[in-house]
């Protein structure tokens, strides 16, 4: 069974972290993944850096730019991950934009993902219809779960369509914003979280974008199966380096 499915079956609320591969230093990838797991994180999204990350705010953009400056490439990332499954058991998902994958070759990329032990992909600019027409069969052949996004503006009909197409979890974008906003969650988010919870979708939802501390984590997981923190974690390692990852994790899931 795919590790994402296994994890989703557990009773607890899931805590997931996004980080950009190759940041702050090119070869931090494995250490960050190991430290996150040993400190109790349930799932990791490994960001494949892209020059033009349209859906990301300044923090993740800056980390991507730096990672590329550090020399990160798709091939290097796979090389760094080649032995990751000898030390790490939690689900690992690659999150990135479609162009670098297209250049690597979609099938070659998926094959490599399976080889190193990647469980799923989140590709915000690969739309549902293109995925279904051209790539679903390839993703499935290599045991990869494709994760779709929904937002507060996504219509009920579209959500139903995405729910039907989803296999792992739905990535529920908390608000109309790029990554890294930290205004907290107000009534608007609360009613959106409730609306989705009431739809009783087949696919569990994990909320991301705008979760930055224990308070927003609690608010999100009140309604959803889990929550994802990205920018706040990147800010932490920008400021403190990679030696105090445990401190960050513990302040979220006290």
């Amino acid at each position: 069974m795919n590790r994402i499915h296994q994890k989703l079956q557990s009773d607890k609320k899931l805590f997931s972290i996004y980080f950009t591969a190759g940041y702050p230093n090119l070869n931090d990838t494995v250490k960050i993944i190991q430290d996150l797991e040993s400190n109790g994180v349930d799932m990791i999204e490994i960001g494949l850096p892209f020059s033009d990350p349209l859906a990301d705010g300044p923090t993740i953009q800056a980390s991507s730019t730096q990672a590329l400056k550090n020399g990160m490439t798709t091939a290097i990332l796979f090389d760094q991950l080649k032995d990751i499954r000898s030390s790490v058991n939690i689900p690992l998902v690659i999150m990135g934009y479609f162009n670098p994958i297209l250049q690597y070759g979609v099938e070659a990329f998926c094959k490599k993902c399976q080889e190193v032990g990647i469980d799923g992909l989140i590709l915000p600019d690969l739309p549902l219809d293109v995925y279904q027409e051209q790539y679903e069969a390839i993703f499935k052949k290599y045991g990869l779960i494709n994760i779709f996004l929904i937002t507060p503006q996504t219509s009920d009909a579209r959500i139903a369509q995405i729910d039907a197409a989803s296999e792992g979890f739905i990535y529920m974008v908390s608000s109309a914003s790029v990554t890294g906003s930290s205004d907290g969650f107000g009534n608007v988010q609360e009613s959106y979280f409730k609306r989705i919870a009431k739809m009783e979708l087949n696919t569990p939802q994990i909320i991301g974008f705008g979760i930055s501390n224990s308070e927003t984590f609690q608010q999100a997981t009140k309604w959803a199966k889990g929550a994802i923190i990205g920018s706040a974690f990147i800010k932490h390692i920008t400021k403190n380096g990679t030696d105090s990852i445990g401190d960050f994790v513990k302040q979220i899931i006290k």
Partner: protein
Amino acid sequence: MNYNVDEKGYYGEFGGAFIPEMLYPNVENLRQQYLKVMEEPSFKAEFDQLLKSYVGRPSPLFFAKRLSEKYNTKIYLKREDLNHTGAHKVNNTIGQILMAKRLGKTRIIAETGAGQHGVATATVCALMGMECIVYMGEIDIARQAPNVARMKMLGAEVRPALSGSRTLKDATNEAIRDWINNPVDTHYIIGSAIGPHPYPDMVTRFQSIISEEIKWQLKELEGKENPDYVVACVGGGSNAAGTFYHFLHEEEVGIIAVEAAGKGVDSGESAATSVLGKEGIIHGCKTLLMQTPDGQITEPYSISAGLDYPGVGPMHAHLYKTGRAEFIPITDDAAMEAGMELCKLEGIIPAIESSHAFAILKTRAFKPDDVVVINLSGRGDKDLSTYIKYFEL
């Protein structure tokens, strides 16, 4: 062969809408509405009226006698430089602001490189009393001070794009992010025939007034609607798309697209996308773009800020791939010389973008009785400081 967009938003294998889900409701709504709106009689009437009384259309088709003599062929200039705001860009912004109004939007965003599209957007927003925010790379803001001032005078807010290389592609990223952050009240006026479907087709249709006019003007002047060649420079490809549109399926008409080679196609400082680009995805569409082998989008270079884009509209990618259009790269030096020649021979100071189109006359031979229509996409006022520096005037 079909050179127009198909129902799914593709030109052959190029185009489509590779957008994050956050943009889906707006882009999908636009996709469902744009043709219906454009066909409404009230929309057509308002669009035509503004093009006539505000933009100053039709723009003349001018027989360039001395240029024709020099190159021993019949050269006509389509005078988009005489439009209000000085370029073809305004054809599109007029169309899109009317579209935005009918979609119930109240806030307009745009990206700009040299500032021409930013000025054209700020202009129509002032005309319609709409809030206007223009994203512009920090580096371009420094390079293009007069256009920044124009936008401000017209009431627009100019926001610097501080990410990446801080030029046009990053300004486009910032505009897209703004749209993600403001999904309800905002319309994004893209300035070229690029972006997710339906943008390339919508922009092309608004610009197609150029070739529509060429047809009847040429009929009056030459007794036939079709020239032997149409020529236009290609940045993202909007003036070229408009110039080519009504000739795409007229096989006897040769189509010539002129790209910016910068310091030379092999110099590492170029924007000749058809030569240097590979298939990929940029700003929501599949097309030819300049990128590293690893799929990172690279920074183009051209002396002309309006041609300094790492991709090309999907229609042009298709025209290139099918061989329907001839693509010719022109260096900075050749363009500057051709610009100066147009000044001296015809009394017209062209935008440096447009100068690229004229530069082909030096190397691409035409027959004496060929009718060659070159789109003069804009006037050179905005480029004076570049001309002054280059020619040490």
